[in-house]
């Protein structure tokens, strides 16, 4: 019977394509907007993701997210190192600095000060120069996208000068870094250098990056650090979640994207539901004939659900495919953030199947109540 349902469905090409279009449109809108939302959210944690190797982030207890830096006393580094189970711990400076460019313009930059000895937290992909070049006096490495923003269209020029806090900084390399939520260029330097570039403050330590000894669970160690130092210690994953949760709860981003996703859902349901309903109504005599010939309502329900599932699968494939194509084709555009994790696919699939389920439920009643004697009316 499912074979008959399939043939009935594709027998009317125009209606079939109309339903698929409605579902695909909804899937496209939901997947594309959700992926942009995920892209934006990934920007908020890009600086956590860029720091490889450190399993635990230690910070002031009041810090709410990665950009909410509350400076601590440098002595906290030694307190963290003293907690049993800590393999190593290093300092990280993170702040916003005002940079004066060589032509006199001012730009804000994200300043990251890495541990002088280990460079933990350094970008993994240095494309001009090397990370060891940071050992030179006043040396900084800038992210490539930021460099392009400050000097559009200009090739990399080693030795280019910036001024931060009236101190000279020399660009010695370029690195690929993840895009940041604030869109400012990212400048990497040594910790000891960074505190001189930053506005003078009594406390300057932003984060302590730590890692557990082999065999020590990062979550347990983070809890131990917190209890012994009174600081906030989070695993990398926990800090990612905390930062994302902050943006979800304190900005209008999820609401705005949620509205678009909801609109996509409603429009998709309306188009698919209406077309599917018309398809069922047009075929009502055929369903009546099948009922007269001995097809039960249970089988009819299965047939309609199968038809709905079929258009759902095709529509989902087309919609998600188009969304992925959109993301792929906009990769060169630095201003667009597109990130499609598997959760977006699952959510889109759930939404699409809700759409087709609603569409089929709207229609199925018509088929259920159709009198098989309808076939005797000419």
């Amino acid at each position, binding site marked *: 019977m499912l074979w008959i349902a399939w043939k009935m469905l594709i027998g009317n090409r125009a209606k079939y394509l109309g339903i698929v279009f409605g579902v695909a449109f909804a899937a496209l809108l939901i997947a594309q907007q959700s992926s942009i939302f995920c892209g934006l959210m990934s920007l908020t944690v890009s600086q956590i993701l860029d720091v490889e190797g450190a399993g635990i982030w230690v910070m002031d207890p009041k810090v709410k997210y990665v950009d909410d830096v509350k400076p601590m006393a440098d002595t906290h580094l030694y307190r963290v190192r003293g907690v049993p189970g800590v393999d190593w711990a290093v300092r990280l400076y993170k702040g916003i600095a005002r940079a004066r460019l060589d032509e006199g313009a001012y730009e804000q930059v994200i300043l990251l000060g890495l541990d002088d000895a280990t460079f933990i937290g350094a970008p993994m992909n240095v494309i001009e120069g090397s990370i060891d070049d940071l050992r030179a006096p006043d040396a900084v490495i800038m992210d490539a996208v930021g460099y392009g923003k400050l000097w559009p269209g200009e090739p990399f020029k080693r030795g280019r000068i910036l001024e931060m806090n009236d101190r000279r900084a020399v660009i010695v390399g370029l690195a690929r870094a993840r895009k940041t939520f604030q869109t400012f260029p990212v400048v990497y330097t040594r910790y000891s250098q960074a505190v001189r570039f930053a506005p003078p403050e009594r406390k300057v330590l932003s984060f302590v990056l730590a890692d557990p000894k082999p065999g020590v669970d990062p979550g347990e160690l983070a809890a131990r650090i917190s209890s012994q130092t009174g600081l906030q210690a989070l695993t990398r994953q926990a800090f990612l979640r905390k930062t994302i949760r902050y943006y979800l709860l304190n900005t209008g981003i999820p609401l705005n994207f949620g509205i678009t996703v909801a609109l996509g859902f409603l429009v998709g349901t309306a188009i698919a539901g209406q077309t599917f309903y018309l398809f069922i109504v047009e075929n009502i005599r055929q369903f009546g004939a099948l009922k007269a010939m*001995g097809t039960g309502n249970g089988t009819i329900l299965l047939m309609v659900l199968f038809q709905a599932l079929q258009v759902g699968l095709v529509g989902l494939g087309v919609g998600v495919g188009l969304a992925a194509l959109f993301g792929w084709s906009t990769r060169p555009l630095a201003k667009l953030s597109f990130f499609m994790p598997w959760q977006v696919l699952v959510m889109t699939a759930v939404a699409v199947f809700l759409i087709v389920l609603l569409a089929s439920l709207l229609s199925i009643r018509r088929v259920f109540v159709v009198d098989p004697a309808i076939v005797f009316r000419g």
Partner: protein
Amino acid sequence: MPIATSTTATAVRVRGVTRDFGEGDAVARALRGVDLDIPHGELLMLVGPSGCGKTTLVSIIAGTLQPTDGDVEVLGHDLVALRPAARVKFRRENVGFIFQSFNLLPALTAVENAAVPLIIAGVSRARALPQAAAMLDRLGLGNRLTNLPSELSGGQQQRVAIARALVHEPRLLVCDEPTSALDAENGRITMELIARIAVQPDRAVIVVTHDQRAYAYADRIAMMEDGRIVSVEKGTRRTAIGPPSQAS
């Protein structure tokens, strides 16, 4: 009021059947106490003016409509007492339908349409399609198996409908105005096929028709008026069937 009875084994037994449509002041009585017997192996024609209740009666006999009152026994089943699911099963196993407007599934080919009752009965496509093809071949459509209904003439579509009605070898065949959508020649061929192939010793055939040319193929003709059977006459089927012929 005459009771259409037969002395041979009875396939259909209808007693005192009434059927109302609507409620309260708007109620319309389509059947007013119909009694009817149809034996196995008989082709009964149900004739009468429009609105006299022919289609209502045949719908009740086929198990697609419940009477308001009365008894209906078809092939040993009390249709009034049967639960809805059992009535569906009864139709699936025992009844073949030929409709006025063919009611073929437009997306299915001729052979696929003819195989539908077998598919409904749970027969695999691999087994159903050859059976349907053989039935179409018997009806002279062996060369049209893969044509869609839209690619067939009205007469050919009706022959596909006949194949569909007979492919699962039902014991009751219900034909509703089988010739009304056809020209004279195709109408004659359709009735010949029904009379020659459909009527079997263990099968009863009911044909609802307005077409007086079809009367010649009946064993008996029951005349209905105003929801009642007003007369039952003997037909001439056994002498009317001519040599086999092919439709256009």
